[in-house]
């Protein structure tokens, strides 16, 4: 397989894995934001983008404390802070520091520019009040999270029309790192959202258990059977493919590949396919959800968590869907509290992620004891921890701390601005993820390499039943469960 096809950053020998470095960066942002509780505003300079018609009014620091900085300086400060922190993280994982610094500068510029363009009022304004406020008569109503789509499209254009440029960007194309950092930060945001409505939050958590059963026990078995029986794939290909389509894309196919002792390239090839299909899903499903599920927002949220593979695409698609559904509800006079749709998608996805290690162990046990009984490298219990996605620990930690502060410390009001500052970085990491996923998606090259048959299994499985069974189960468990009303 050509390296130009997909740039999965297989970790090189370093002192830290990408998983752990994402936990550290996410926690750094989280701790700096929490210092706001003590009256120390350390992140208020972070740049945020508002919906605009006058470009000079688009950018600004997230906190009024730093309003003297202005938009341009806030953006430069944000870039320098991210460049420094991520450079350290990449260096610690054994990456090429010089190439990362150069590539990240360009990646950040294009990704942030996409958010900026996506926030143009003709793209982003939603309600009649917004149109009137900006003095415009029409809008695509993408919300200012439509910037995610612009970032994805920018990445796709580079991957498919400027492959040498995509290759040059390679060191900074790290969607897994960016989304894992975002998910660690998201833990605090979700806890702050959940603290106000604990009953609803517990209900979402309990209903999320259904997602695990569906992904592992139902999806996996069916996809594996289809791949083996009807497409004739060998076990080495069918198992990582089943995990990629049914569980959680890249991480699951790599983990399964390791568990059944497949050649590493099998999982990488399957992963590249997963990323391509995740792009297709992100471009279609949020808009389908807006069209058909606007009155069942949490059904839509759970559905995306189940149907969109890869953490990055699923969680970010949840973000887009939240914006679209909240905007649609607002235009009908219903104002939902923000955060619940994204929280539900993330909960479903994180629940699924938690069991990757356990499922890999089950497969490793069956493969090394029954299928390849001559295998000397037998499955060990330690593999469960080894394959456990460590960024989940960061998510659990930020979630628990904020929940404890909100419930035990009665700090709900003070937490809001601190979490909002951390959330600004979460959105930037989402944008970086979307752009990176786009750059990974060289459709033509993948086709040239003969992935048609793998793609056929994916199409049959994804559009034949993964999406529909996911929708049915989301409906059974989440229909009638609504986000609380704002105010």
């Amino acid at each position, binding site marked *: *397989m050509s390296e130009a096809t997909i740039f999965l950053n297989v970790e090189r020998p370093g002192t830290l894995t990408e998983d752990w470095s994402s936990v550290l960066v996410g926690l750094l942002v989280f701790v700096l934001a929490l210092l706001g509780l003590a009256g120390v505003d350390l992140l208020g300079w972070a740049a945020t983008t508002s919906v605009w018609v006058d470009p000079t009014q688009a950018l600004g620091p997230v906190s009024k404390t730093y309003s003297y900085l202005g938009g341009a300086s806030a953006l430069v400060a944000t870039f320098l802070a991210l460049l420094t922190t991520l450079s350290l993280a990449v260096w610690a994982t054994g990456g090429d520091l010089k190439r990362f610094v150069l590539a990240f500068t360009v990646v950040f510029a294009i990704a942030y520019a996409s958010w900026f363009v996506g926030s143009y009022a003709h793209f982003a304004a939603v309600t009649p009040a917004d149109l009137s406020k900006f003095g415009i008569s029409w809008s695509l109503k993408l919300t200012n999270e439509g910037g995610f789509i612009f970032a994805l499209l920018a990445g796709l254009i580079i991957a498919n029309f400027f492959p040498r440029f995509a290759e040059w960007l390679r060191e900074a194309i790290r969607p897994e790192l960016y989304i894992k950092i975002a998910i660690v930060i998201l833990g605090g945001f979700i806890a702050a959202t959940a603290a106000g409505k604990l009953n609803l939050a517990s209900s979402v958590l309990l209903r999320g258990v259904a997602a695990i059963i569906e992904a592992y026990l139902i999806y996996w078995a069916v996809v594996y059977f289809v791949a083996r029986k009807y497409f004739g794939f060998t076990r080495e290909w069918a198992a990582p493919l089943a995990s990629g389509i049914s569980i959680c894309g890249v991480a699951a196919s790599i983990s399964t590949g390791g568990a059944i002792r497949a*050649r590493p390239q099998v999982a990488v090839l399957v992963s590249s396919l997963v990323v391509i299909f995740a792009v297709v899903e992100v471009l279609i499903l949020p808009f389908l959800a807006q069209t058909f599920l606007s009155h069942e927002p949490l059904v839509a949220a759970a559905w995306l968590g189940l149907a969109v593979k890869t953490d990055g695409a699923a969680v970010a698609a949840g973000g887009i869907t939240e914006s679209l559904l909240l905007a649609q509800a607002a235009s009908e006079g219903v104002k939902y509290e923000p955060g619940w749709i994204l929280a539900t998608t993330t909960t479903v996805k994180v629940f699924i992620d938690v069991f990757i290690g356990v499922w890999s162990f089950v497969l490793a046990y069956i493969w090394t004891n029954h299928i390849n009984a001559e295998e000397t490298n037998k499955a060990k219990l330690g593999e469960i921890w080894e394959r456990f996605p460590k960024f989940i620990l960061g998510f659990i930690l930020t979630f628990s701390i904020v929940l404890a502060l909100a419930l035990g410390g009665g700090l709900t009001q003070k937490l809001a601005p601190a979490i909002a500052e951390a959330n600004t970085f979460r959105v930037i990491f989402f944008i970086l993820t979307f752009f990176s996923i786009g750059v990974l998606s060289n459709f033509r090259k993948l086709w040239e390499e003969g992935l048609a048959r793998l793609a056929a299994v994916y199409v049959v499985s994804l559009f034949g039943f993964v999406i529909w069974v996911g929708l049915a189960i989301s409906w059974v468990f989440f229909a009638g469960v609504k986000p609380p009303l704002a105010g």
Partner: protein
Amino acid sequence: MSEPSIKDEAKLRFSEPLLAIEKKLIIWSLSVGVVSLVLLAALSRYIPS
């Protein structure tokens, strides 16, 4: 280690019939999954939302 290619490995199609243990994995997985979902769906009626 050889570089796998779907094209090259197409000739291996249907070269590995489903073993009894694979069938067992598929059937058990689906059965436990469906039964658990039915139980959870019934249980979810008692979860306040």
